[in-house]
């Protein structure tokens, strides 16, 4: 096993990896940009190296600087987390060339699965079902329109080097095709440095169901059941769960076997996820393979009891898998809400600023993976993810109830968040019934419901505002033996970037 690893990431996933390594007695090296000097991952790691200015391109995407930091810190391996360089085959190759271990799949598997067109080709050969679509990338222009017609509208424009929903557009009518291809291409270029896009059949109302796989260096490949990630907004997952409410043990075995076949077909090693679209007639189609740890991995951990990051480290160190397929059980149900700094009532625009107050929920079955902290900042440079709130329950109903309670206890001041939006989803009858697909949010969630809350809550809030503003609220009494309270913040609070405390 490694003595020391470097984590080429930031935020909650860097913290998550540090904790796993710490439990295994492995020392951790954090890398941080100038904006992250006080970040949780910088403080929690055993070593911390500055890798440049705040913009990702100059720090977390700076391959040379990161490998140099690993050398300086005498790290033996690099864990890329998700995002940033996690699916960058060149980086994986450079790490290996530097004599270090890349904690992830072989560069060729990353490259093959990263090119969505190549991935489709490999999967078709391996007998894994794929959706109809173009075999290769395509330029916006006349040819594209013909192909789209053949496939039949609606079609989906996807970035050839894409992933995570970026650089993706649905096209319903021929006249929208060009504009959408251009937009997708522009987004793809910006996000992945590759403007190439391709076209595939757009399935109406599919579910997004993915299978977690683990593959070691000794030919063992297992799957750890499915995750359902159908609750999406603009192709971005918002709420994920395991198991899926629609997957029966028979279907699980079938999709699981397809995922294992997919992993074998691309020579996969380490933890990966095979994403499928699942239609109303219970057909499933390979969508893509994510060659990294997923954001939503905790729901698998909480229902299988398996620590995925520890498995990644063991696999990368060359250890054979000790878990056999038949050992993988499902215990209860887990749901994850991605808590973002964004304003659902203002078109979900990212909300930046300092976290003035951070009150996180707790209690049985609640896990909150976060990289932020009170006094920390949601900056323009990185993903506006505040935390991943996960609730486990003995069954799906209990998991939903716990999630609702946790969302109600959660409070963040200083930035907007999507907490009320997640609460709204939990309270939506179709969600409670498990009747979800990738159009769930558009079709079932009324943002106006969120804005209004219940009539009673709004009235209580009005009373709170008036009584707090126009009467003199008592400060918490300090009993005998206590410390005299500081001067009232009501008297001393000044204006602070456009906001003052009541």
């Amino acid at each position, binding site marked *: 096993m490694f003595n020391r690893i470097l984590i080429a990431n930031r935020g909650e996933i860097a913290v998550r990896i540090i904790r796993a390594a710490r439990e295994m007695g492995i020392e951790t090296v954090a890398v941080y940009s100038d904006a992250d000097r006080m970040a949780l991952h910088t403080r929690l790691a055993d070593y911390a190296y500055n890798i440049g200015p705040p913009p990702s391109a100059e720090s977390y995407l700076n391959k040379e600087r990161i490998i140099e930091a690993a050398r300086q810190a005498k790290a033996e391996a690099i864990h890329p987390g998700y995002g940033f360089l996690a699916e960058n085959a060149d980086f994986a190759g450079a790490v290996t060339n530097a004599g270090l271990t890349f904690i992830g799949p072989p560069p060729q598997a990353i490259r093959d699965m990263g090119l969505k067109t190549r991935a489709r080709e490999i999967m078709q050969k391996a007998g894994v079902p794929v959706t109809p679509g173009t075999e290769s990338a395509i330029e916006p222009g006349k040819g594209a329109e013909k192909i789209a017609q053949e496939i039949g509208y609606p079609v989906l424009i996807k970035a050839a080097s894409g992933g995570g929903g*970026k650089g993706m557009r649905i096209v319903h009518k021929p006249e929208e095709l060009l504009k959408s291809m251009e*937009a997708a291409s*522009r*987004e793809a270029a*910006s996000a992945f440095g590759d403007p190439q896009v391709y076209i595939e059949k757009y399935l109406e109302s599919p579910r997004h169901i993915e299978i977690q796989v683990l593959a070691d260096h000794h030919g063992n490949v297992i799957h750890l059941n499915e995750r359902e990630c159908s609750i999406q907004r*603009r192709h971005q997952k918002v709420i994920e769960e395991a198991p899926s409410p629609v997957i029966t043990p028979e279907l699980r075995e079938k999709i699981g076997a397809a995922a294992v076949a997919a992993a074998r077909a691309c020579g996969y090693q380490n933890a990966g996820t095979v994403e499928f679209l699942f239609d109303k007639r219970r057909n499933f189609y390979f969508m893509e393979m994510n060659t990294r740890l997923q954001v939503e991995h905790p729901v698998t951990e909480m229902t299988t009891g398996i620590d995925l990051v520890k498995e990644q480290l063991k696999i990368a160190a060359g250890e054979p898998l000790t878990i056999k397929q038949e050992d993988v059980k499902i215990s209860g149900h887990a749901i994850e809400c991605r808590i973002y700094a964004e304003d659902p009532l*203002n*078109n979900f*625009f*990212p*909300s*930046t600023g300092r976290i*003035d*107050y951070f*009150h996180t929920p707790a209690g049985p079955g609640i896990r909150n993976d976060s990289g932020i902290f009170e006094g920390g900042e949601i900056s*323009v440079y*990185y*993903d*506006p993810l505040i935390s991943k709130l996960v609730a486990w329950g003995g069954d799906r109903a209990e998991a939903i109830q716990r999630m609702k309670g946790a*969302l*109600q206890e*959660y*409070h963040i*001041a200083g930035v*907007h968040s999507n*907490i*009320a939006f997640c*609460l709204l989803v939990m309270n939506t009858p179709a969600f409670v019934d498990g009747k979800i697909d990738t159009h769930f949010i558009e079709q079932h969630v009324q943002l106006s419901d969120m*804005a209004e*809350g219940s009539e009673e*809550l*709004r*009235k*209580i*809030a*009005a*009373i*709170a*505002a*008036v*009584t*707090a*503003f*126009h*009467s*003199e*609220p*008592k*400060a*918490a009494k300090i009993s005998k033996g206590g410390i005299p*309270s*500081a001067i009232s*913040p*009501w008297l001393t*609070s000044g204006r602070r970037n*456009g*906001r*003052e*405390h*009541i």
Partner: protein
Amino acid sequence: MKYFAEIDDLSYQIELKSDNHFSIDGKAHSFDLMRSSKPEQFSLIIDGQSYQVWMEKLNSTSAGSPARVRVHLSGYDFEFTLDDERSKKLREYTSAESSTEDEGRVVAPMPGLVVKLLVELGQKVKKGDGVAIVEAMKMENEIRAPIIGEVREIVVTEKQAVEKGDTLAVIG
């Protein structure tokens, strides 16, 4: 004294009778409001009902305008405009003169990069039409027209970085 808390088109009229009594909708209630050592955190008990409330005062748009308060309760956020009887009356007298020139401003809701302008000077737009695409955090966001009208001014150019609150264009 009577106070008003306004949100969207709703106005709550609340009369504070003492430090622990108020009335709303013609009914009197007892209340006990206490602030924790965290300035935003309050406990409000109304007739035995307990509420955990976080509140922060928002900056008013201009001097002399009524106070704005954000209230966080049970996972929801509400923003109220607070007013008392006297100021409200005063304001109603003068409101006729108040200008509405701000409402046509198309404003960047977050810092980012203008990747594309979707309108031209003089173009007619409907409320909700796309005006510009601003990229922030690797996502493209379409910024839309707040009102119907004509594009009177385009303040930014493509590839320009903008701060939160910057005006991109003016519709009039």
